[in-house]
């Protein structure tokens, strides 16, 4: 009872702090100076149609690199925690699950391929349309998950996943360094030609970076699912 009162008091106190701020701030009439600067300059600076992408990958690209690092650290943590040994699964074979029907397997195979292609499409067009590396990565992970569901006995190939994850991550850092050497700073996408705004090959290295992020995120998320499934040595 005492506890409930305290919880109530705590939440009420937080509400007392939070609600005036949230309710009182109202709806702005126009973006601030910084946002306006992004909106007007980004297309010219980087030739990116999607200004959010321009911010995410270049202006605040360091955040995104950090974000990738967060996901990486989380994957590492999950992998360290949930090995088969530590889950008490030992060397036992994963429990047999009823095999899916032939049709389902074929269908998922097809769907998986389509989904992977869709994911690739999303991150390749990140600088033009909504979406980007993270969304594309999730779609790829989902595709692999579907494969996992259809064939419960299959393992994702750790080797390939790990290699994709490592190499795409290292390549991301490499692109950042390329920006530092060929352009004006670490993660500067102007290392590659900016191209014509709105076309696929434009916005300097933004699509390259977003694709690498997509691959890395896809591999990492699959890795997390893999570990939760109990397939990590």
């Amino acid at each position: 009872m005492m506890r409930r009162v305290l919880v109530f008091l705590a939440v009420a106190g937080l509400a007392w702090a939070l609600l005036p701020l949230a309710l009182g701030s109202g709806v702005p009439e126009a973006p601030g100076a910084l946002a306006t600067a992004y909106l007007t300059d980004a297309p010219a600076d980087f030739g990116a149609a999607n200004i959010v992408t321009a911010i995410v990958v270049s202006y605040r690209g360091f955040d995104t690199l950090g974000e990738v690092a967060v996901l990486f650290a989380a994957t590492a943590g999950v992998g360290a925690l949930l090995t088969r040994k530590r889950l008490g699964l030992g060397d036992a074979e994963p429990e047999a699950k009823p095999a899916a029907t032939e049709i389902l397997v074929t269908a998922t195979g097809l769907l998986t391929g389509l989904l992977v292609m869709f994911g690739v499409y999303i991150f390749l067009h990140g600088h033009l349309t909504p979406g980007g590396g993270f969304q594309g990565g999730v779609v790829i992970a989902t595709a692999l998950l579907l494969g996992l569901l259809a064939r419960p006995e299959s393992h994702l190939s750790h080797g390939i996943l790990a290699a994709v994850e490592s190499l795409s991550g290292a390549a991301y850092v490499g692109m950042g360094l390329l920006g530092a050497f060929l352009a004006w700073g670490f993660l500067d996408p102007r290392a590659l030609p900016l191209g014509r705004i709105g076309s696929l090959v434009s916005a300097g290295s933004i699509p390259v970076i977003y694709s690498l992020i997509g691959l890395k995120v896809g591999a990492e998320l699959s890795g997390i699912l893999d570990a939760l499934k109990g397939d990590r040595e």
Partner: protein
Amino acid sequence: MLVDVALLVSGIVMIAAGIGAVLARSLLVSILLSGGVSLAASLVFLLMGAPDVAMTEAAIGSGLTTVVYLYALARARQPDEEDSDPLGNSVKGGR
């Protein structure tokens, strides 16, 4: 203004789903409701002119996170009732 009303309605849906997610006795229901919160949130994001965020929220918040929860739930051999002990015996009222 219409958008505002839609946002407000979605907000109410989210809050209801959120409260439901916290209150539900069944973890499965809880997970699905929290996925629902994310789905509604992605609708809100879309309405606000943030398609990037909406996509991300839909894919990650309501999609992948839910899958991760379900996997974890299965892996933990967690009985669906939230206040059960490891062997699955309900210990309701035992607190």
